[in-house]
């Protein structure tokens, strides 16, 4: 293995750590709103590090841009989704049985 692919592996493992942390938060945190914190923050950085690691493996220009785009879209989608879930939960006018 070249030094570059060692570095890539390190980034990917660091990304996995944040995915595990996000999942642990999802299971341990006490309420809906707190769980959203774990999912938005930890998973986004997890995916970012994963993408960074994969970029170091030299996927070529088009695939590289595609990876970065995937990360950006997931960022926007998860922040927006978290906001919508939180808004519904706070206003209490969703479909949840209380």
């Amino acid at each position, binding site marked *: 293995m070249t030094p570059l692919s060692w570095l890539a592996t390190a980034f990917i493992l660091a990304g996995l750590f944040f995915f595990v942390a996000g999942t642990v*938060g999802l299971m341990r945190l006490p309420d809906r709103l707190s769980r*959203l914190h774990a999912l938005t923050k*930890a998973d986004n*950085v997890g995916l970012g590090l994963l993408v960074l690691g994969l970029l170091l493996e030299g996927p070529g220009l088009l695939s590289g*841009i595609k990876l970065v785009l995937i990360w950006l879209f997931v*960022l*926007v989608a998860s922040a927006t989704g978290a906001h919508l879930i939180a*808004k519904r939960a706070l206003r209490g006018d969703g479909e949840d049985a209380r």
Partner: protein
Amino acid sequence: MTRSKPTLGAGLRRLVLFAGAWLVIAGTDPTSWIIGVPAVIAATWASLHLSRRAGGSPRLLAALAFVPFFLWQSLKGAFDVAWRVMRPRMHIAPGIHTYPLRLTNASARVVLLDTLSLLPGTLSADLRGDVLTVHALDAADGALLDADIARLERRIGALFGERRASVTIESEPKRADVPTGQDTDAAQA
């Protein structure tokens, strides 16, 4: 909200952007354009007719300066939440906090809501009128939360060239706190 008339320039810019996106998605195989050309035209049409932002886009230089700030803060946010939940006894005091928003630009508000959720400890939960409701993993110190949100508000105001946010912060330090006990979800769990 005002809705600007789609111009030829804006249409061409989007056409090129979506064509680039198709190239990234589908690769360089020329036969992919059989589907790609109609898709790109449809995307351009839909985007011109659906977008009704009144606020315009961020300024380029300010946006470039925002990127490292955003990356560093989201890394801090992820470490913060990982550290809180991985310890044997979780270090949290979740609660709701309200903040009087000064940003008026519609695009800037969307950026603020999404960015706030990725920064340490805060999640933008609701926005009614000018009142931003934030859920915090540690809502014990309301003044600290206010300072964090105000700093982000100032940065995003600068991103969209809105000066008002930075002027009013020192002159009127108003805030409204709601005690942490009001988080009904936490109380039930």
